[in-house]
């Protein structure tokens, strides 16, 4: 008798618990939380935690046994190579982004001029550099820049221009690295600007034409203000990606000649992985954070603004 009541009691409790669970599962916030849980875990464990772990690593000595505080940073500040890397990263990122933005803008206009039916074909061809994995296309550039069999030098030689040391000389190597980056990144700008150009209402141009605006004034007073937001987002985004670039420099020059093309990512790899000084490598890559953070804040502001406009 006692047994039975106890059992039924237990069953009731179990069902109550189960319905409680079911209710919880039916609650919107609970479902939403469960749906986002994998995402939250991924971001916390594999992005946020490593980011802080990197700060921790940067304060250790080479065998990672002792806390040295800012020792790694002090060491870096005393090294000429570090300042060379800082300078080169800035030159690389800024000039590459400027040229990508300019070429992208110009090409987008040309594509926009072409009759709508043919635009697809041109757009398709011009986006190819962005589609090929950069590691693969940089190999093609490396071969085009080959010291003894360079196809570019062969072509230039036909015009009597002497062999150019594309990757052998410090200044030329910097130029080559930037050139390949522009080649790879300009199509992205082109596509973004083309989408923005298409969203500018035709009436604005008609109104400007009636007011007697010339071609340049139309661009300056109509196109640019209308595209300002997308230009800002694309440029900042590209600044982040270019500043953190690894593939192109690594494959094309591996930082050489004599560290004259190293940027933060490649030097961090050289020091941290190849030189197995993980703390120093972590410190080097941490120097990217301020610039990335500033760019990210501005992007976020612009993207939110854009969201509010729409």
């Amino acid at each position, binding site marked *: 008798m006692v047994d039975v009541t106890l059992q039924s009691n237990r069953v009731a409790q179990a069902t109550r618990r189960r319905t409680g669970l079911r209710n919880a599962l039916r609650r919107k916030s609970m479902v939403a939380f469960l749906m986002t849980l*994998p995402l939250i875990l991924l971001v916390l464990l594999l992005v946020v935690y490593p980011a802080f772990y990197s700060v921790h690593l940067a304060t250790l000595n080479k065998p990672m046994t002792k806390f040295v505080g800012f020792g790694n940073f002090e060491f870096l500040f005393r090294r000429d190579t570090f300042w060379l890397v800082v300078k080169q990263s800035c030159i690389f990122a800024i000039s590459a982004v400027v040229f990508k933005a300019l070429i992208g803008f110009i090409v987008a206009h040309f594509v926009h001029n072409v009759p709508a039916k043919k635009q697809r074909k041109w757009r398709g061809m011009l986006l190819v550099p962005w589609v090929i994995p950069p590691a693969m296309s940089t190999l093609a550039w490396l071969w085009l820049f080959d010291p003894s069999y360079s196809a570019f030098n062969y072509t230039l030689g036909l015009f009597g221009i002497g062999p150019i040391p594309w990757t052998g000389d410090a200044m030329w190597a910097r130029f080559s690295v930037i050139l390949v980056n522009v080649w790879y990144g300009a199509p992205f700008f082109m596509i973004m600007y083309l989408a923005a150009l298409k969203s500018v209402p035709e009436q604005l141009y008609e109104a400007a034409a009636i007011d007697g605006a010339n071609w340049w004034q139309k661009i300056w007073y109509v196109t640019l203000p209308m595209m300002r937001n997308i230009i800002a987002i694309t440029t900042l*985004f590209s600044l982040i990606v270019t500043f953190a670039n690894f593939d192109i420099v690594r494959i094309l020059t591996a930082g050489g000649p004599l560290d004259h093309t190293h940027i933060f990512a490649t030097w961090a790899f050289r020091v941290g992985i190849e030189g197995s000084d993980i703390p120093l490598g972590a410190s080097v890559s941490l120097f990217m954070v301020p610039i990335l953070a500033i760019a990210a804040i501005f992007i976020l502001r612009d993207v939110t603004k854009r969201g509010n406009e729409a």
Partner: protein
Amino acid sequence: MSTVTIDKSGPTRKVKYGSMSRDRAWALRWSYFFLVLFAIFSLVPPLYMLITSLKSSAEISAATNPWWVYHPTLSNYVELLTSNQFLRFFWNSAWVSIIVVTITMLISVPAAFALARMKFWGSATLATGVFLTYLIPDSLLFIPLFKMFAVIGDWTGIQLINRWYVLLFIYPTLTVPFCTWIMIGYFASIPKELDEAAIIDGASWFQTLTRIFIPVALPGLIAATIFAFTVSWAQFLYPLVFTTSTDQLVLPVGIITTLIKGDVFNWGQIMTGALLGAAPPLIIYAFLMDYYIAGLTAGATKG
């Protein structure tokens, strides 16, 4: 009657637009001229890959015109496609990419649905956080991640470094934030009435997602899938850091570390390998260009 009116307005219009259309015609000619120049600039490296891949080693080292193939041969392709090592790289790449795409979709689609439709405590912050995560580059995280997985190996005895499947843990950090972000955008653009109707009809949240949102936002889903695939296929830094044994390498790293032996560059094979490595993204792009571009431009719009 109607023909008369057209005839009447015809000449005046023609005169009016005469100078305009001449300007247009010139602008068009210049546009084509520069577009051809830029197209050449864009296509020279991939075309040169193709040219070189059809040459024999003897022809490559001969001092002939490098832009022309005098004795086309498929020997480079045959050699690579019958080499177990190269096929291994290809399969590693394919497996990593396919599994990563699956993981990415399984994580980001429900998350995007929850963030777009089920407002809960902290959902706006989380959406912003996802976007910020997308902006964190791989070159910032490779050192701490490498150390992290080394430490995990020491603690638990599960050796993940130098195994191709370690990439399955790492690539989602690149693909999931972006895919979630653009899926939020696509889901948010779906009219609210649609899911309200589904809820009224007694559909659960899960059913609303699978029966309404996924079919309606399919173009976005395809764009996100393409993005995840191309990112995983092209990733170079993480596999370079995490894998070293030749049987664990993915294609980009495999080509660079095995085909370049010291100072000896077998360019015919390198270019063939590079072209074969570039082929899957290019083929996807050729057939699904509109989705590809939609995914590309969606990143800059708020969800």
